[in-house]
């Protein structure tokens, strides 16, 4: 892991550590919690053949929508892409591989990787189309589906506040998948509107302890999409 005293860096340096072909978790449910500034830097730097893992596909012109439009995403693991007609088109044309999961299972599969397990046993989706292709086992006289955990090389997360060690505090419904992804990826890059000195955040208020965070960068509240967009989900 990155040493505590070497985490606070620039957005360019943080994103430059991501190679072509990386699997990348992206926080956010709709716009809140989406790390727009990190995604725009990823667009600018040009990494391609990416696998993205995000609850939704944002909208065509923002967030991961831009990466999908630019043809930089080979594969998307998600729960619902109804607000992005371009992503649906790309999927239907066979140019974007899309793997869909029920939202709560997606969250739990990510959290399960974050907890260091192989997977979990669930009854969600038994006897529905979702069950196709899942391995099932009998335990205590009932049938359960094995849901393998989902990990990633990188997670991009958005926080409201951070400290220089990488402790994170989220706000409102911008929490969503961010703390789960911060646990589940090998390298975690966090953006925050403010990055304060260690000691600024009260220990009980920290949502993601710094142990899970590799890099933290400050982004401007007024110029990032977080501060402007009225588009949501």
């Amino acid at each position, binding site marked *: 892991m990155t040493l505590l005293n070497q985490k606070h860096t620039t957005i360019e340096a943080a994103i430059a550590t991501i190679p072509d072909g990386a699997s990348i978790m992206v926080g956010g*449910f*709709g*716009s*809140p*919690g989406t790390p727009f500034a990190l995604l725009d830097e990823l667009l600018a730097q040009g990494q391609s053949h990416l696998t993205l893992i995000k*609850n939704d596909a944002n909208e065509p012109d923002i967030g991961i929508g831009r990466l999908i439009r630019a043809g930089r995403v080979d594969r998307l693991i*998600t*729960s*619902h*892409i*109804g*607000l992005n007609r371009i992503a*649906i088109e790309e999927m239907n044309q066979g140019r974007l591989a899309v793997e*869909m999961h*029920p*939202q*709560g*299972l997606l*969250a*739990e599969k*990510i*959290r399960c990787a974050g907890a260091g397990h192989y997977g979990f046993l669930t*009854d*969600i*989706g038994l*006897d*529905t*189309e*979702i069950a196709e292709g899942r391995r099932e086992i009998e335990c205590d006289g009932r049938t359960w589906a094995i849901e393998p955990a989902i990990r990633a090389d990188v997670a991009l997360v958005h926080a*409201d506040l951070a400290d220089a060690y990488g402790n994170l505090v989220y*706000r*409102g*419904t*911008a*929490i*969503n*998948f*961010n*703390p*789960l992804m911060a646990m589940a990826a090998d390298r975690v890059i966090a953006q925050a509107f403010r990055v304060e000195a260690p000691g600024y955040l009260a220990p009980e208020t920290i*949502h993601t302890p710094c142990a899970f965070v590799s890099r933290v960068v400050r982004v401007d509240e007024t110029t990032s999409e*977080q*501060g402007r*967009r*009225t588009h*949501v*989900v």
Partner: protein
Amino acid sequence: MSSDQERMLARAAREVVPGQIVNLGIGLPTRLFHYLPPEMEVLVHSENGVLGCQPLANGGEPDLEMIDSGGAYIGTRPGASVFDSALSFAMIRRSRVDVTFMGAFEVDQQGNLANWKIPGKFSPGIGGAMELAQKVDTLVVLCSHNDKQGNPKILRQCRLPLTAPRCVSRIITEKAVMEVTDAGLEVIDIAEGLEVAALRAATEAELIIDEHRLGRF
């Protein structure tokens, strides 16, 4: 919003008991928000990670980091909390949400629900609907009685891929309020001015109707 929809929402609001935790699905159910009196102690759960949603005051400046799962900017009421998606769905899978209201493409007399996919036409992903449908104790469907072509949506047997089997408790349409029972679909209320024969004609499912006990709405 049509007056039919307004009538459905007013009727649906009567399903909510003070002190409950309620989830509102995308579309018409989200509008139910406005039919719960502000003083009523009800916490609205939205699966993107908030318990205690409240409609944004008219003309109120939105907080860009506060939306519901339908994407609308929201406020919160006293007693609200925000949390991550894993906790939000733990709440759902542990049946800590008392009632959920959802739309439907099809619903049938066994209580099966299809509201997420039309093969070849519409498959944006299931989102949170499957877990809500499977695990919330009381699922109330809020949908039009027939589709735009006039075809029945209240069926003997769903044809589309299911959201969850045998999950529906009640169905509220502009024509009737129906309860899913072991015996089949029992009509509780019928729309003001509608004949029983007309209701049956608009419905594929078999309906159990006791005209003496039928309410109007």
